[in-house]
């Protein structure tokens, strides 16, 4: 396996929670997105892999063990959440920096810098001081500089978090074009944005309390979170106790400690005799959700009928295929006959 391979990797930073042990493979040209609540150790993990904080266990970059090496000898580039540009160099000087370190001639470095700036759409700023750049421009300079190091492994720490939405999507497109190509670096992308993770990640990992709890295709993780903790983090709309599930579903799946259902798994039909009462409508970016009461149980359902209004009574139908059943241990239980992901 080339790219990045972690085997039982841990970081133990004094005064911070222990991260790991984590084992993970990222192929060249692949992006693994890591999602997790703040404080889950995402940044510490990346810094550990980069050698900026002490780590134990194995880190292999392109098949070579680099765990014991200093940061500069790992072939791993770590990109900070807020870009750390060199204030004494202009845009070109910043991008050329890693090439000049490797003894690449000024002319060759300048040529390659021009290409990279072209790719991040900053060619017109080549001779500008970095002091006057906007946040989005700074992030793109940092990205071009990282690519100039020809990294085997690229670690991106929330690269979009400081940007406003229009710049985010622009930078996301730029990143896609740079990373997702054969021969591209193996990339670990830390984010707390589900959309970024789903769009850029070939695979999606969930990091909670310093451990990798699930790793799968983004769609699979979103549809079938492995534990109730992940379901809660991913904000699966409905999470019912067995008692609540009995009220809503009329039965409790065997062994269930928690029954979860996404909002779109709950269908509503207006009916004067329905069990659900629409309490209020919650507008969303793509879809409006309705908060219902079934007896005393709160239920979130996706609204399909635009005439629905608070005070309406509705009958409910829950799509059993989409129910997520979690046992006492918090692990998801597979239901017989249900096609897994």
């Amino acid at each position, binding site marked *: 396996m080339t790219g990045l391979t972690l085997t039982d990797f841990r970081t133990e930073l004094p005064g911070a929670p222990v991260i790991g042990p984590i084992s993970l493979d990222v192929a060249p040209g692949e992006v693994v997105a890591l999602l997790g609540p703040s404080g889950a150790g995402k940044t510490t993990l990346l810094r550990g892999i980069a050698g900026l904080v002490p780590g134990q266990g194995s880190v292999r970059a392109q098949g070579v063990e680099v765990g014991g090496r200093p*940061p500069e000898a790992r072939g791993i580039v770590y990109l900070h959440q807020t870009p750390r540009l*060199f204030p004494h160099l202009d845009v070109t000087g910043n991008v050329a*920096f890693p090439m000049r370190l490797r003894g690449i001639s000024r002319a060759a470095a300048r040529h390659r810098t021009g290409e990279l700036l072209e790719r991040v759409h900053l060619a017109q700023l080549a001779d500008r001081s970095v002091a006057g750049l906007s946040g989005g421009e700074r992030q793109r300079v940092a990205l071009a500089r990282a690519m100039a190091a020809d990294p085997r492994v690229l670690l991106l720490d929330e690269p979009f978090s400081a940007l406003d939405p229009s710049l985010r999507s622009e930078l996301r497109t730029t990143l896609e074009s740079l990373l997702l190509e054969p021969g591209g670096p193996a990339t670990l992308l830390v984010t707390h944005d589900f959309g970024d993770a789903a769009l850029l990640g070939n695979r999606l990992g969930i990091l909670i309390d310093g451990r990798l709890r699930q790793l799968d295709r983004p769609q699979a993780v979103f549809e079938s979170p492995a534990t109730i903790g992940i379901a809660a983090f991913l904000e699966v709309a409905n999470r019912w106790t067995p008692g609540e599930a009995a009220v809503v579903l009329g039965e409790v799946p065997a062994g269930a400690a928690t029954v979860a259902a996404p909002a779109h798994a709950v269908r509503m039909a207006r009916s004067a005799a329905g069990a659900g009462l629409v309490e209020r409508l919650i507008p969303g970016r793509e879809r409006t959700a309705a908060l219902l009461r079934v007896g005393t149980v709160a239920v979130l359902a996706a609204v399909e009928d635009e005439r629905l209004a608070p005070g309406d009574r509705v009958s409910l139908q829950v799509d059993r295929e989409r129910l997520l059943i979690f046992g006492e241990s918090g692990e998801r239980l597979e239901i017989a006959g249900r096609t897994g992901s």
Partner: protein
Amino acid sequence: MTATFRVFLVAALGLSVVLPLVALILAAFGLRWFFPALLPEAWTTESWQALSGGRLLGALLESIGLGVIVGVVATLLALPTGRTIARAQGALQHLGAAAAFLPVAVPPIALAAGLQLALLRAGLGGTRSGVLIGHLIPATGYLSLYFFGIFRLLDPEIEASARTLGASRWQVIRRVLAPILARPVREAIALGFLVSWAQVPLTLVLGGGQIRTLATEVVAYVQSGQDRYAATAGLLLAIPAVLALAIARRSADRTGMVPG
């Protein structure tokens, strides 16, 4: 604050700097200047000719030599000290900053009195080395605080960034820290020079009258009533400060940040 009052304040401030300088110039070139005459009766450059040799020239060279050494050595000591304090955490940082502040806060004469005993015991009483050590103490403390401020503004993650881009520790120093710190280092050398340049009590006590600098000569000339020489030495003493101000003004113009 009314506009008139503001004008008054600025004028008062300006005059308080300019008037003594004008008086110094008149006294340095004036011959027979007695109260209540506004100007001297005649002019002379006699005290300036003394600069071609003798006491005044010796003192000038002594001051320049001490100032340059103190500026350079104090900067070399203070840079790593200030960086260590800036990178320390919590109570340790407060302790470090307090330790650096102590030699700045203690009156030089008190420092001199204590230091003299130690230097005499080391056989350095009344020597140039003794005076140098004395000047280095407040200068290093002052510059440590200066570099503490510089390094607190300098994000340590810049170094981390350079490391993961492939720079070794040495390359980080040579290609990142050195160019960023070039200007603060130049300023620190100038500040250290000025601390030594203006120092009187430490030089007098530790030098035991053997080491004569421009600053101590002003004291000596004033005490012996040689006003023209006192004024001449005083003018020479003011030159570096005026130069420093002019340079600061020029670099401020370059960056577009004009003071005032």
